[in-house]
């Protein structure tokens, strides 16, 4: 249901504005309206202007915005760890925090930068260590002499070795040695030994061929190979120690300060939001005005609260709601516990306008029925009901999941009901094992009767939608629209009578007077609905035929269940048969959850709601913490 709203104005002494806003935010039932349309009476526009913050408040806002930026920056640079909650009231310590936050921010920034540098260097050292480790067996067989140069390289493609050898032979006149060894990462690590005179040309060739040469940093200069290995290992160990130490320092700092800074940030956010809300208020020379909306039932309570808190210095007045206000009224949907879970479907639609209907009860009533008609299997219904109960119990704190499970539970109950009517329990098992006949109709063979049944449901649902359209039209004093919808109902009923007479369901003599009546009403239809009225009527007939999907999708479901049982029976073995049939039934159940859901919703959204629902409402967003 759409909750009845009240248009209110709160007036008080200017210096009380922030306290009033804080109080209203605590109550959490008032939505402030920044627009003046419909609130400020004609002739008073010049006396009332937007509320201006005083000098102190402006300074406070600037100070808090700067502090918020610093605290946010500090918090974002701290490690993400689980910390306690702080129960410290930030208000008395805000100046102390402002004094130390910059120091903390700089210190943490330096630590993070140092940590990044150490990590980067350690990665480099690990690369050198891997390279040197791979080269160790090769180096052992090479005698270091002053005339020779050693070039280390990483070769990603083994084919490159042949090309490299060709190039080296050409440059060095066969005076080289290239040794390769597979590295741990799957690449090849190579060592080229050449005379010093050829070293530069070889390096240029490597660069041209895009073979990365491993260049050691200057700190490695003058070290022999074993010294290099030792140096790398020592440096890596030192870096690891440093990183662990900084990590521990950061963790200690975070544990100690993060809860405090979070609490300060939340308080600042709260305070800034209050200060920015004042921009939506208005003022005269002595008073402030706040315009807005609240649920009509809350007016008395809020009036009492304000009167008590400010000893009559602040007054709440309920203003008369005019027709032009109806487009601006925010919407609150409030439904009884049975319908509440169905709001997950309503939330997928735009909100209804204030003068329209809440779609939730309609979905709550018809969705499970359509779902049950489509699935229509007692076995599937029982299984889905059990799953829904389990999910409800297991995820009772996750509202969306719990609501979805509740909807599934109701829908599964209707599936059981229609399953009993259609005599289906995991397909045609009752007939196979116990020769039980359906109570009502066997969907698998009664195709035409089921089409008529689905069409009858469609007629009832679409006509109900049109009836609501008529009521809504009269309520909104749009008489032409209401009469047009009324005529549509009469026309559809007339067409049904004509068709029923044609198929000899009704007496044939009925057809002629009804056709004459339809022809007589047609000009009226043009007058009320415009030139496109017959097209709209045709659309309504198309909407009714669309309900055949209830039967069509149900038929696919029952046939798939039938195929599952047949295939299970064909295996000739109980265990294999149960497994085969079970797998196909499982597929059918999965399809049986999604398909009926989507199609039932579509029947509501497109066929039913289009007849009377008006969207375009805005959500009620009260001031609250």
């Amino acid at each position: 249901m759409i909750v009845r709203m009240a248009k209110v104005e709160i007036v008080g002494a200017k210096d009380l504005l922030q306290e009033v806003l804080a109080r209203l935010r605590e109550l959490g039932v008032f939505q402030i309206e920044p627009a003046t349309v419909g609130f400020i009476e004609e002739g008073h526009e010049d006396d009332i202007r937007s509320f201006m913050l005083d000098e102190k408040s402006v300074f406070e806002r600037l100070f808090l915005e700067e502090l918020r930026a610093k605290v946010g920056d500090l918090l974002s640079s701290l490690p993400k760890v689980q910390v306690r909650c702080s129960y410290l009231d930030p208000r008395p310590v805000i100046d102390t925090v402002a004094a130390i936050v910059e120091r903390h921010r700089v210190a943490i920034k330096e630590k993070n930068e140092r940590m990044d540098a150490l990590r980067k260097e350690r990665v480099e050292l690990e690369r050198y260590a891997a390279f040197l480790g791979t080269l160790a067996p090769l180096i052992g067989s090479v005698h270091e002499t002053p005339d020779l140069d050693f070039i280390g390289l990483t070769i990603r493609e083994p084919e490159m070795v042949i090309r490299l050898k060709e190039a080296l032979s050409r440059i060095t006149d066969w005076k080289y040695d290239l040794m390769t060894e597979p590295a741990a990462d799957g690449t090849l690590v190579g060592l080229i030994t050449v005379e010093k005179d050829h070293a530069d040309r070889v390096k240029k060739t490597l660069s041209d061929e895009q073979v990365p040469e491993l260049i050691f940093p200057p700190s490695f200069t003058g070290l022999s190979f074993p010294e290099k290995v030792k140096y790398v290992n020592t440096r890596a160990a030192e870096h690891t120690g440093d990183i662990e130490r900084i990590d521990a320092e950061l963790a200690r700092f975070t544990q100690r300060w993060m809860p405090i800074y979070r609490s300060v940030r939340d308080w600042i956010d709260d305070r800034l939001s209050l200060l920015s809300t004042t921009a939506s208020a208005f003022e005269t020379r002595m008073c402030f005005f706040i315009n807005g909306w609240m649920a009509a039932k809350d007016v008395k309570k809020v009036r009492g609260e304000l009167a008590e808190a400010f000893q009559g210095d602040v007054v709440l007045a309920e203003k008369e709601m005019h027709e032009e206000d109806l487009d601006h009224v925010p919407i609150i949907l409030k439904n009884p516990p049975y319908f509440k879970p169905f709001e997950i479907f309503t939330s997928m639609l735009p909100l209804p306008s204030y003068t329209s209907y809440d779609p939730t009860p309609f979905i709550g009533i018809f969705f499970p029925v359509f779902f049950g008609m489509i699935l229509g299997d007692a076995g599937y219904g029982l299984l889905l009901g059990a799953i829904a109960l389990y999910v409800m119990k297991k995820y009772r704190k996750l509202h969306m999941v719990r609501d979805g499970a509740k909807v599934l539970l109701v829908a599964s109950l209707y599936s059981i009901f229609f399953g009993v009517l259609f005599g289906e329990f995991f397909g045609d098992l009752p007939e196979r094992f116990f020769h039980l006949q359906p109570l009502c109709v066997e969907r698998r063979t009664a195709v035409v009767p089921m089409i008529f049944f689905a069409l009858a449901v469609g007629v009832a649902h679409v006509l109900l939608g049109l009836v609501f359209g008529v009521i809504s039209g009269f309520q909104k004093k749009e008489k032409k629209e209401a009469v047009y919808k009324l005529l549509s109902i009469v026309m559809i009923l007339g067409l049904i009578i004509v068709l029923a007479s044609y198929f000899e369901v009704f007496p044939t003599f009925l057809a002629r007077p009804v056709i004459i009546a339809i022809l007589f009403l047609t000009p009226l239809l043009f007058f009320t609905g415009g030139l496109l009225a017959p097209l709209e009527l045709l659309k309504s007939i198309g909407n009714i035929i669309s309900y055949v999907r209830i039967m069509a999708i149900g038929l696919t479901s029952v046939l798939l269940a039938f195929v599952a049982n047949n295939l299970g029976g064909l295996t000739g073995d109980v265990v294999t048969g149960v497994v085969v049939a079970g797998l196909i039934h499982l597929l059918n159940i999965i399809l049986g959850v999604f398909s009926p859901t989507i199609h039932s919703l579509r029947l509501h959204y497109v066929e039913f709601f289009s007849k009377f629902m008006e969207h375009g409402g805005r959500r009620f967003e009260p001031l609250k913490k």
Partner: protein
Amino acid sequence: MSYEKVLIALCAALAIGLTALATAWAQSKIGAAGAGALAEKPELTGTIVILVAIPETMVILGFVVSTMILFTVK
């Protein structure tokens, strides 16, 4: 006699087959555009589901015509 039955079956198959192809084509276009729109605005889920489901009316009408051909044409 059997020739007529074949024609009836063919007509029924065409009625549902062609409308199914038309629905599939329309849904592929709407689905692709809808997926793009959802990446930008996830709050449009309900609208996109409706848009994707709208062309299904064609195949439902095809199904009705097909059933009428099979069960009413003698």
